[in-house]
């Protein structure tokens, strides 16, 4: 092997790695919460009886799903600045990630809505519940429960994809890696450590979603069905 690896030389910068990992998690957290919200609204919007709302939601979802995140980030970052709006890199990163993951969430949630048996909705209609009440009480939670694994994976993917935020000066994990590797020229050691950290982060996120699932789906918890 023509290459000598010297992990200690890179590992001694662990505070930077930790800070990067923390920022990555932070980005993922905000984008997940906001994206879930926007995505759910867009999913509901796509089923709207107003052609305008349904159409707008569709355009949003399709435009985002069919272009790379990096391009979206650049367009938001430089676009806003050209308009004179100077937001911090963190704000822009969260905004772009939210817009991005919101579109995917919308698609997943829509599948969840469609998976609710017609009979459930008819039963609720038969009980004189209003449209909004039906969405809230009958559709939302079971739909989320049905697509929970897909949502979990999507949000983990979002966390991994947040690595491109290094491009707009957000100091997340990949940015830290890029800095350390160009400062030390020890690229292998750096990227191997970063890969391990990402795997750990994704496990942490999955564990978090698992725990959240326990809270969200009391029936699952009580009947012991695996999530």
């Amino acid at each position: 092997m023509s290459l000598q690896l010297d992990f200690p030389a890179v590992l001694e910068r662990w505070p930077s790695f930790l800070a990067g990992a923390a920022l990555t998690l932070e980005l993922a957290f905000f984008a997940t919460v906001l994206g879930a919200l926007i995505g759910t609204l867009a999913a509901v919007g796509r089923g709207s009886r107003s052609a305008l709302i349904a159409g707008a939601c569709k355009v949003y979802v399709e435009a985002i799903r069919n272009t790379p995140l990096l391009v979206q980030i650049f367009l938001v970052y430089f676009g806003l600045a050209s308009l004179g709006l100077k937001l911090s890199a963190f704000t822009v990163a969260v905004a772009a990630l939210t817009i991005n993951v919101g579109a995917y969430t919308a698609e997943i949630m829509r599948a969840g809505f469609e998976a609710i048996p017609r009979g459930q909705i008819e039963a609720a209609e038969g009980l004189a519940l209003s449209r909004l009440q039906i969405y809230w009480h009958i559709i939302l939670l079971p739909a989320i429960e049905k697509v929970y694994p897909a949502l979990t994976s999507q949000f983990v993917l979002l966390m991994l994809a947040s690595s491109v935020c290094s491009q707009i000066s957000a100091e997340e994990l990949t940015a830290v890696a890029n800095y350390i590797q160009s400062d030390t020229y020890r690229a292998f050691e750096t990227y191997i450590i970063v890969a391990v950290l990402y795997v750990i982060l994704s496990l942490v996120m999955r564990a978090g979603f698992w725990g959240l699932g326990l809270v969200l789906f009391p029936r699952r918890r009580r009947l012991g069905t695996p999530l």
Partner: protein
Amino acid sequence: DLLDDIMQAKKIRISTDVAIPPSGMMDSSMKPTGSDVEVAQLLAKDWGLELELIQTTGATRIPNVLTGKADIIISTLSVTPDRAKVIDFTKRYATLQSDVGCLKSSTVKDWPDLKDKSIGVSRGTTQDTTLSNMKDKDLKIARYDDDATMVTAAVSGQVDCVASSATIINQIGVKNPSRVFESRIPLATFDLAIGLKKGEPRLMDKLNGWINDNVKNGKLNAIYKKFHGVELPPDMRS
């Protein structure tokens, strides 16, 4: 021995980032050009070799030679002790004067004026390291993945100061006349050198000899002046 391999193959593979103007970039017909590219071309010509430019990104310049995918790197490598632990550097073939540049309309004169101003810089460059080490100065640093993104950030108004070479600082105003930047605070002068894998003394000697010759005959200075608009420092122009 790498030198023999190169000579036998009649081809030298040089790792260069073509996205860091004016050292490496594309001309309007999308051919690689820039000061580093011309240095590489000159070297290949002098040694009678075919040139293969290995186009890289900032992150992969070094791994390319460590894993034998390229023979040497000519890509604005500044020499630092940390880096010298990983690869070997030749003598300097150029220098890089770095300044902190600010909007012409701003009042920045010295370090204290930089408080609350975000300073754009290319991530992991020696400018970045230098600024990052000035912990006492309480600077707000915005790091971009490469010079181009940093310049774009300055052009579009995301930052009002940048730490970079004078060439690049001047470039911003060319791209956006309403945002002219000029050098305000000198940062440091770095030596740029050719990088190669450790343990290749014969190649190292030959490269050093070639640099000496071309410093003396003024060819390196000419290339530098052509792209950077200024000459190399006096002690490199004998």
